[in-house]
């Protein structure tokens, strides 16, 4: 098991200068950096084994197919589920769309789809579209002024609305709030709702056991969890997953095709038409191996201590306002400074080599609820260190001087 602070060395991208300053990468919520083993694996695939999967008997194809399906097994183990319950998609967004499209026939006019005010657009718009298609109603659990949703309120709203579908993020990409989804799911199950959890942000920081969570569907994106771009995962309990109608159609997901009729394979194959993102699957396999070698509780403790350090220093700056749940948090904080525009702060921070995200973070409804036009978001990962935070705080103080001076 690795010493957490040493792991930073595996991320070569972090070792560079921006505008003459060392890069301080605080935008892992947008996409994580990749450890060298992931980059090497992609390299190795393309330069040694490059072939299509499930399509050839020859050695390269057989080798790659074994590795490719091996990653599915590996991830299944990591998540505590069966490999047959995991579908490769092109991203969390694709995963949610697949489910929202697939549930169309299970909804009637006036049925309720319940979501929270914290959701990313990817976990809003597909449900809105589904509601429009079916005449169902989209109901939203609100946040308080601080951007917090309390567990009791969620339970009460589930009880009140008796939703057919309950879709909820595991952690907010804008505020970092961790939601008590296990409790929500249990409640939603009692009333027979289908539960979909958006784990895009949570997966890397919380390593959930999906069997324990007991949700029907869980989605994530590889690129936010040390893996390559262009790969998402959809977990679905086998029966529910296999019960969804086919989504996209094409090669490899079929059993037989004639011009009159086509029969489809069983899940997960039925949802995987066409050539998959092979290099990304193999790269993500390396990411899962890498994560498996990191002691989770050590990582978690380290991330939380970094986050506390960040909050301490950030809240000490006069004029800074923090949002969200500061206690149950994956290590992501949104803030504003007086009435300054996030654009100015982000641009100025960048001139000091500090990479943060600014704006609405694809959560416009949350911004409306908080009466903001945007925030600066700092999102941490285990490869950050205290120096990053010191540099960020010092840069922020300089920016404030620049603006006010």
């Amino acid at each position, binding site marked *: 098991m690795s010493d957490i602070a040493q792991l930073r060395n595996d991320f070569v991208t972090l070792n560079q200068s921006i505008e003459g300053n060392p890069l301080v990468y605080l935008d892992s919520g947008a996409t994580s950096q990749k450890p060298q083993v992931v980059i090497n694996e992609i390299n190795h695939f393309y330069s040694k084994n490059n072939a299509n*999967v*499930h399509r050839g*008997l020859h050695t390269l*194809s*057989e080798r790659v*197919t*074994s590795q490719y*399906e091996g990653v599915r097994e590996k991830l299944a183990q990591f998540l505590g589920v069966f490999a047959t319950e995991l579908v490769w998609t092109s991203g969390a967004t694709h995963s949610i769309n697949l489910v929202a499209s697939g549930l169309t026939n299970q909804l009637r006019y006036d049925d309720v789809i319940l979501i929270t005010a914290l959701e990313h657009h990817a976990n809003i718009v597909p449900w809105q579209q589904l509601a429009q298609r079916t005449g169902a109603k989209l109901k939203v659990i609100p946040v308080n002024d601080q951007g917090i949703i309390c567990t009791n309120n969620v339970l009460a709203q589930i009880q009140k609305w008796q939703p057919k579908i309950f879709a909820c993020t595991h952690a907010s990409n804008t505020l970092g709030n961790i939601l008590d989804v296990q409790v929500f799911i249990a409640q939603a199950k009692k009333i027979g709702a289908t539960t979909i959890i958006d784990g895009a942000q949570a997966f890397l920081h919380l390593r959930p056991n999906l069997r324990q969570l007991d949700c029907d569907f869980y989605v994530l994106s590889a690129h936010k969890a040390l893996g390559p771009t262009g790969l998402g995962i959809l977990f679905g309990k086998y029966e529910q997953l296999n019960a969804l109608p086919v989504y996209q159609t094409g090669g490899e997901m079929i059993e037989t095709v004639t011009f009159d009729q086509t029969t489809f394979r069983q899940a997960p194959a039925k949802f995987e038409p066409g050539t998959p993102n092979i290099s990304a699957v193999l790269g993500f396999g390396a990411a899962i191996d890498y994560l498996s070698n990191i002691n989770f509780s050590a990582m978690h403790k380290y991330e939380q201590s970094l986050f506390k350090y960040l909050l301490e220093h950030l809240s000490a700056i006069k004029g800074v306002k923090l949002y969200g749940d500061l206690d149950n948090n994956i290590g992501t904080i949104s803030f504003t400074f007086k009435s300054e525009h996030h654009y100015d702060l982000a641009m100025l921070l960048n001139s000091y080599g500090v990479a943060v995200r600014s704006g609405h973070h694809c959560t416009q409804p949350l911004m409306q609820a908080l009466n903001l036009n945007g925030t600066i978001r700092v999102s941490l990962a285990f490869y950050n260190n205290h120096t990053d935070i010191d540099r960020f705080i010092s840069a922020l103080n300089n920016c404030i001087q620049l603006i006010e001076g």
Partner: protein
Amino acid sequence: MTYQEIHDKLTSTSSWQQSYREIMLLGKQLPNLPNALKTEQAQVKGCESNVWLHVELDESQQHMLLVGDSDTRIVKGLLAIVLSLYNSKTPTQAAKIDAYQEFESLGLIKHLSPSRGNGIKAIVDRIQTIALQWV
């Protein structure tokens, strides 16, 4: 041919081509299944080849009887090896057979990879399931 004879033949080959020749010869020695027995039910679904398999229990002897066929030479040969492993074994004996290990020792483990799409893995799995049912 007994499994031991097959084992001796295959482990003395020095190239893939020689192995394939032996495997195909084994296939040739396996009697063709009458078309009437090539039922949908008997079919083991593999991607690239058709495989049919019947597994029965000889009630008097309490041992297993297996017959099968394939439309490809190599899969038929591999099938012959599998059949020789299981034929005339009691269900209890059969359940203890580790076909993977045997294929490993024959140098044929790659053929059990699901991605080879030849159905051999599915065949072994089906036999094991049936044998366990009779134990």
